[in-house]
């Protein structure tokens, strides 16, 4: 996941910074393209080019076995995707995953950050504990959680039986619970990112606000609810949208933990795309599925832009 939010660290002496667009720097510098060439060449070759090719190939019966685009297919690939049950179920599983992971990833991360921020000592320890899993490779976290979810001897069976849940053949081998298992592993894996964003947001809230609230007799819980939560609204918005986009492109942990199974009960969009492209060798159909996934992500990104724009507008007014 590569994402960026609008704030960027300032170098020393940033106060003296001046927009280079002003005054003397206005003259045109033709050598600019020499600086840009390496990036732009890679950008065209490995981003823009493949993107265009993907759109074109989605209208052809392209395959890996023969060279070229193959026979023209019109909208057949798209029609096929819309008619395929496993395409819709892959989208549904993605939505399911989003619904399972987003609320805990927002709420638990928030609780972790607030409590860590208030902890009197040992903050470094809590930061380490909550953040460490985030840097682990998907291969590592999948191995660990498959082991934890092992029926009977796995660590998960201890609290699960305590809670009266039937462990059965293991959470990952039951079509009804496999996605929950993947969601739990993912929450554990990625929460550190949200935790750090919240922690940074908390640091920017002036303490005077809490003091004023305390003077007015607000309890700590009221302070959190009336001061912290509203002031972190922007962070929460960012966290939710990044999480939704991250959910749309999950693949690693699903492939490594269940390989989409049992049956196709955990198959997600990228899983379907890789199977179509590299097992069935149907590049054209897989391109159509990729284009559809791309359009979904595009719509969400545009919504995010509108929301950001609207909230900045609101802030400017107030």
């Amino acid at each position: 996941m590569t994402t960026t939010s609008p704030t960027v660290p300032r170098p020393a002496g940033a106060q003296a910074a001046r927009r280079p667009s002003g005054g003397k720097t206005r003259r045109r510098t033709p050598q600019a393209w020499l600086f840009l060439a390496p990036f732009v060449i890679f950008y065209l070759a490995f981003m823009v080019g493949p993107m265009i090719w993907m759109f074109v190939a989605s209208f052809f019966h392209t395959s890996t076995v023969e060279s070229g685009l193959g026979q023209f297919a019109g909208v057949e690939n798209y029609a096929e995707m819309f008619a395929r049950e496993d395409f819709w179920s892959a989208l549904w599983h993605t939505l399911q995953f989003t619904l399972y992971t987003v609320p805990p990833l927002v709420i638990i991360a928030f609780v972790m950050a607030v409590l860590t921020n208030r902890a009197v000592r040992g903050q470094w320890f809590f930061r380490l504990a909550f953040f460490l899993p985030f840097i682990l490779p998907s291969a590592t976290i999948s191995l660990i959680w498959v082991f934890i979810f092992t029926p009977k001897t796995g660590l998960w069976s201890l609290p699960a039986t305590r809670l009266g849940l039937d462990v059965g053949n293991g959470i990952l081998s039951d079509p009804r619970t496999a996605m929950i298992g993947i969601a739990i592993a993912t929450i554990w894996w990625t929460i550190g990112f949200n935790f750090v964003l919240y922690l940074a947001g908390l640091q920017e809230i002036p303490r005077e606000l809490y003091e004023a609230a305390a003077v007015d007799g607000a309890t700590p819980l009221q302070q959190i609810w009336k001061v912290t939560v509203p002031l972190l609204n922007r962070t929460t918005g960012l966290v939710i949208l990044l999480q939704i986009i991250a959910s749309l492109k999950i693949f690693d942990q699903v492939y490594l933990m269940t390989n989409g199974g049992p049956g196709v009960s955990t198959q997600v969009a990228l899983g379907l795309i890789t199977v179509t492209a590299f097992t069935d060798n149907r590049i054209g159909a897989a391109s159509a599925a990729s284009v559809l996934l791309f359009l979904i992500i595009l719509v969400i990104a545009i919504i995010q832009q509108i929301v950001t724009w609207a909230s900045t507008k609101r802030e400017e007014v107030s």
Partner: protein
Amino acid sequence: MSAATPTSPALSKAVPAVKAPTLAATGTRSRRRAPAPARILAFVILAVLALAWLTPVLWATLTSFKNEAEAAAMPVTIVPENGFTLQAYVNVLSEGLVPRWAWNSLITSAAVTLITVAISALAGYALSRLRFAGRQMLITLIVASIMIPGQILIVPLFHLMLNLNLVDTYWGIILPQVVAAPMVFILKKFFDQIPFELEEAALMDGASRLRILWSIVLPLSRPILGAVAIFVFIGAWNNFLWPFIVVNDSNLMTLPTGLQTVISAYGIQYAQNMAQAVLAALPLIVVFMFFQRQIIKGIATTGIAGS
């Protein structure tokens, strides 16, 4: 635990733009003086969460040092009765290809990092300092592509690699990973903040733009270059999907993709599986230990994370 200690200075260092709480500012009393039961409850919740988050890693590490019989034993033993053993690691490492995969991961991740930082810094500098036709359009394009996840493009990228004869090569793994629009954007924003006066004098003296970038701008940008490099490296090391698609030859697999192929061969060899999990993560844990502050600061201030 004292009720009036200011926020740990370590954290304020990790997050910039935070006014370090001075000792005089122990007027925090009003905020800290929550009733004792509430404070204890808060601490208990925090401790339980920390325990829950550490347990999987600790348990996996512990298991990797047990023998196979004990790793699968029920009830779970905390301290192995037969003592700790390195047998699982010996078995995994003698699995012929593991050192090779680690080497492949290191080479490709280092190459991705070097190329990405170099081309992104050059482009970021041009976008920040130089004026040329199409500048605004290029900035818009780069910002727009930040939201597009590279995973969307695996199908056309694989086809491209097939035509370039780069399937099953290092370059096939490396090249598609070096296009990092967010990194260009982050570097551009950073360069924007560097006072132009510093470069002006050098320009007057007839220094070339490249020289100015190398000897004035880049040294001032060390922290952000470091953060970008760390994130690119972590992203490349952890990348599973792309190497998994573009490499079939087991001699060329990276550690995460290679390990995946032997897991099934081991079956229920839990200690060996956990030894693999630890080995795949080890280089990253080392990177994390050294650069913890930069990593956390990088996320907090820019929201970047590896791909």
